[in-house]
């Protein structure tokens, strides 16, 4: 008797479900960043708006990477419905704090899937997810550094202007140089 399920897909059902949830989360992140870009543009933080436009694009690329993996491995990739995207934020700093929280949530979610992969012996997907594990290190660093700038520069006087100027320059150098 043929193993029709395995012939169809490399992915175990639980892993496929988790990856589809992650696709949705990445799409949601992308939309939140787009809303943040819009908010920053409205309040004159042009550089930050540019940073969030870039982040929104990156999250979409992450979503597509997982989407394509699910489809390529014979699974059913589900085009996500994105709802509950906040359009307004309490202030400049809050936008960045929320962005950091979002990145932490994504890291935790990726870790949970890696955990499930190990539990279900899905080594091929675990290896695929290692790219995201590494990526999240960078994403979290950048988001955390952005929040840190509010402490380092301060919001008084021309502080917000200076923070907005510094935001696009944040980059993560793994070698610590």
């Amino acid at each position: 008797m043929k193993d029709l399920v395995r012939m169809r897909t490399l992915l175990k059902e639980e892993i496929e479900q988790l990856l589809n949830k992650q696709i949705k989360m990445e799409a949601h992140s992308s939309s939140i960043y787009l809303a943040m870009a819009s908010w920053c543009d409205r309040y004159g933080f042009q550089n930050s708006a540019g940073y969030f436009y870039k982040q929104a694009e990156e999250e979409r690329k992450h979503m597509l990477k997982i989407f394509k993996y699910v489809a390529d491995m014979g699974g059913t990739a589900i085009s996500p419905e994105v709802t509950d995207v906040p359009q307004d934020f309490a202030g400049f700093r809050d936008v960045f704090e929320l962005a950091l929280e979002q990145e932490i949530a994504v890291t935790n979610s990726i870790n949970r899937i890696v955990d499930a992969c190990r539990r279900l012996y899905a080594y091929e997907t675990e290896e695929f997810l290692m790219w995201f594990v590494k990526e999240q290190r960078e994403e979290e660093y950048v988001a955390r550094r952005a929040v840190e700038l509010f402490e380092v520069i301060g919001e008084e006087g021309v502080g917000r202007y200076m923070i907005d100027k510094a935001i696009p320059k944040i980059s993560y150098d793994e070698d610590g140089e």
Partner: protein
Amino acid sequence: MTTLSQTTTQPIELYTNAKGATFQCDLTNRIILQFGEARVSLRITDFLAFKKKVDSVDIHTMIFNTDDAYDVEIIDAPRTNHQFVLTLCDLIALRDLLAGTRFTLELNSLLHARLYFAPSY
């Protein structure tokens, strides 16, 4: 007797209950679903999608809502031109049939992974 690896020419029974039965056809790689008078043949992807549809019906609402609209549920069998018109009892029996079938498919997968593909040394 057939082994795990052999392709059989006759459909193999996967699960049976009072209202129906399911079979796997190794020649066409399809799942044959016999439920009441209906008989449909589904690709594995469509079988899993159909199971999801059936599982997603809100049985609680069907039980407690007195409106006629909640007496039956109509569900398409993907790519078969067949619609299942299901009463509450049908729905519960169909869910059981699909769950039992899914279990057998899963068990077969497990046996393949652990026995058939296991090294013989």
